[in-house]
């Protein structure tokens, strides 16, 4: 260490450059702030790729079980609350907008706006978790949980079986043995049970598309306990009563939304950290990398939900 004078000792930790004209956040091993920013951004995109792949496993599970148990998904998804799910979708999209705006504010050095936008993003995230909590609580009370804890309460059970009939009827049902089954409401109902009566069916118009019914006579009645259900011009074979393995849907529902909720919580932590730093005025046009990267992460959390919502809530 005799030449310590000539060459100031440099601790192996990345130290900030002393020169006030240089960017205070430039780590020692980067040449330019641009290089540092690009590295951070590339690293974040790689990390997001790993997140997508983490969720992809669950999407695979979803695809496999939906293909092997379509009736479970058709039946069970109706017990999710589309209204709350829809509100949550809007909440998350809005918070993503706030986050994007926060990045812009950081780039332009608008400190007040940055703090406001980050706070709004946080608010969105917390609202999402609150609504999710209400949904989970309802499912918990009904006993509609994952396989190991799937014990529907008597009410839920009754509701389960009743809802199957009731909603199907509303959607325009024709059972194979009762071609006179009443259909009402909606576009499908304009030609009630046409598909199964097969006597000079008139074309129907669904969402502006003319659909002609098949002239081929209907298939013989399906297996016992099953019935044909017409929905959107297509015939589906549906079980009379709730399928036994409904828990598969709720297992997948809780796994997917649960993992997503954990990511929301992690995102809220990251946003809080960025908010704290922004209140100290650490971000501006010269350095806004954390805002940008946390923003990317938050958008990913949003995008995952945008896939989860239709796949779980909006089956048919």
């Amino acid at each position: 260490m005799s030449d310590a004078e000539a060459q100031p000792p440099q601790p192996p930790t990345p130290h900030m450059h002393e020169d006030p004209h240089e960017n205070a956040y430039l780590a020692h091993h980067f040449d330019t702030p641009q290089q540092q920013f690009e590295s951070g951004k590339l690293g974040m995109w790689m990390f997001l790729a790993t997140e997508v792949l983490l969720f992809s496993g669950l999407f695979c599970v979803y695809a496999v079980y939906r293909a092997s148990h379509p009736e479970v998904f058709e039946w069970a998804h109706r017990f999710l609350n589309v209204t709350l799910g829809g509100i949550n979708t809007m909440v998350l999209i809005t918070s993503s907008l706030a986050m994007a705006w926060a990045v812009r504010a950081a780039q332009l050095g608008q400190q007040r706006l940055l703090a406001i936008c980050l706070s709004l993003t946080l608010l969105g995230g917390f609202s999402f978790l609150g609504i999710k909590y209400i949904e989970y609580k309802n499912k918990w009370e009904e006993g509609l949980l994952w396989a190991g804890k799937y014990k529907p309460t008597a009410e839920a059970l009754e509701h389960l079986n009743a809802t199957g009939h009731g909603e199907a009827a509303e959607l325009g049902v024709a059972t194979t043995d009762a071609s006179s089954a009443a259909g009402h409401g909606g576009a499908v109902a304009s030609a009630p049970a046409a598909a199964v009566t097969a006597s000079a069916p008139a074309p129907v118009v669904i969402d502006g598309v003319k659909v002609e019914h098949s002239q081929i006579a209907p298939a013989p009645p399906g297996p016992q306990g099953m019935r044909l259900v017409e929905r959107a011009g297509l015939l589906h074979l549906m079980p009379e009563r709730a399928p036994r393995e409904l828990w598969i849907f709720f297992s997948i529902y809780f796994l997917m939304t649960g993992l997503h909720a954990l990511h929301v919580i992690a995102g809220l932590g990251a946003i809080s950290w960025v908010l704290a730093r922004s209140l100290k005025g650490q971000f501006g046009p010269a350095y806004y990398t954390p805002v940008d990267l946390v923003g990317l992460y938050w958008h990913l959390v949003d995008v995952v939900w945008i896939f989860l919502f239709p796949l779980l809530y909006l089956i048919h």
Partner: protein
Amino acid sequence: MAESSAAVRGGAGVEYPTDNYLTHTQGLRSWLFTLDHKRIGVMYLVSVLASFFLGGVLALLIRTELLTPRQTIMGADTYNIIFTLHGAIMIFLFIIPGTPGSLGNFVLPMMLGAKDVAFPRLNLASYYMWVIGAIFALVAIVMGGVDTGWTFYTPYSTTTNTAVIPVVLGIFIIGFSSIFTGINFIVTIHKLRAPGMGWFQMPLMLWGLYATSIIQVLATPVLGITLLLLIAERVLQVGIFSPAYGGDPVLFQHFFWFYSHPAVYIMILPAMGIISEVIPVFSHKHIFGYKAIAYSSIAIAVISFLVWGHHMFVSGMSNMASAIFSALTFAVAIPSAVKVFNWVATMYKGSISLATPMCYALGFLFLFAIGGLTGLFLGSLAVDVHLTDTYFIVAHFHYVMFGGAVMALMAGIHYWWPKITGRMYNERLGQIACLLIFIGFNATFFPQFVAGSQGMPRRYFNYPERFTDYNVFSTIGSYLLGLGFLLVAAYLIHSLFRGRPAPANPWGGATLEWSTPSPPPPENFEEEPVLGDHYDPYDYRGLVYDPRIGGYVQQHPH
């Protein structure tokens, strides 16, 4: 041969640099909180070698039990636990993080001419994730171990009452370590190459590490979710993998091998990178087919994602799927063979010095060729049905993983040892140990090919009498192997205290890490390396051996 011996003998003229990355700061804290990629690499090296030791002791216990057809030293349940821990420790704690974490961390920034990896904090976090994962594994051992085999197949893993959860959680956490290293390496290679270093001026080690990192980043998350689902299955009974609730256990196998087959290439690609460095340097000849080796690394990384089904030919798949997976398995052999041919062509008409790293590299070529070719036997459907779950499989993957990955890691450790520690080891002992390991390895695993092809099943603690001779031979071989590694440990540790100071460039390498003193200064280079217009990491012209320092010096800039 003569040249390298001289390199060791003539090391008297070198002074150990007083200010280097090892001595720059002192004390335990300066290591535990270091952000220097070299120190993190050294910590990784020590840790993975400790795991290797633990896994090795378990291996010797397994071999000792198999010395006789009946119970020798342990019962069936203990045996199940021992072989599971051997597999899990060797795979997840040693081979997967081994080369990238230790040697990769140490040399990658230096080969690029950079001061550090792109994210030093992430790098340290990666190391501690490994440590936490390892602690979970140790906790599991204390809790009585786990007996599922390292693959954790359901439904057994969801029903056994051994400590599955701590092990699986540990591996999940180690997954983060793997992902962090991968992200770090990819970004560093993209963004921190020295000015003038294009993609095709990078040493091939970096192409190997780049391909490895791609697999680490793209495959590990799938293992992560698989293990989470397994934990969820045990804790909550979600019915995804458990047939008791209508789940599909074969789905677990698909998920598991979607990661674990590419993971085989996480283990072998950096090994191939090391071999691509060692062979040209000790042949004193330009690498043959640079671009072919570089592209084949990427090709292996891509195809590795498409072959997982060949682990499941007897698990119940359609014939069509089996045939496609079989064809793809043959396809992945092509880029591997491209590399082997290029390495051999590099040696052709070279001036080969049989220094220790080169001895290991030659061992690698021999063993990896056997391991790779027996992989093709297993990739063909009809043969696989006969050989599934026999010792043929055990022999095959040990030839690839041990004969490939570990031999290359040994080559790399010996090759960069002077750079890492600043000391030369005893060359003669190095060569003897390499020979011991090579003979011991073949004695251990070659008989297993024969026993396996005759139908000896794997994972049992006893076996029919007629397999006794093969097993006795194999066990004696394993003791020889253990002896070889003890010898390596002895002379390497001895060199730390008594080894001659190493010159900057003891072997005549042309990659950038050899242009800086051994051990390197804290920021790797005394002056930032400036590369000429025609920089070539395999151009050995102008490197001349200087007997006074026992190493090579650049005679004139080319």
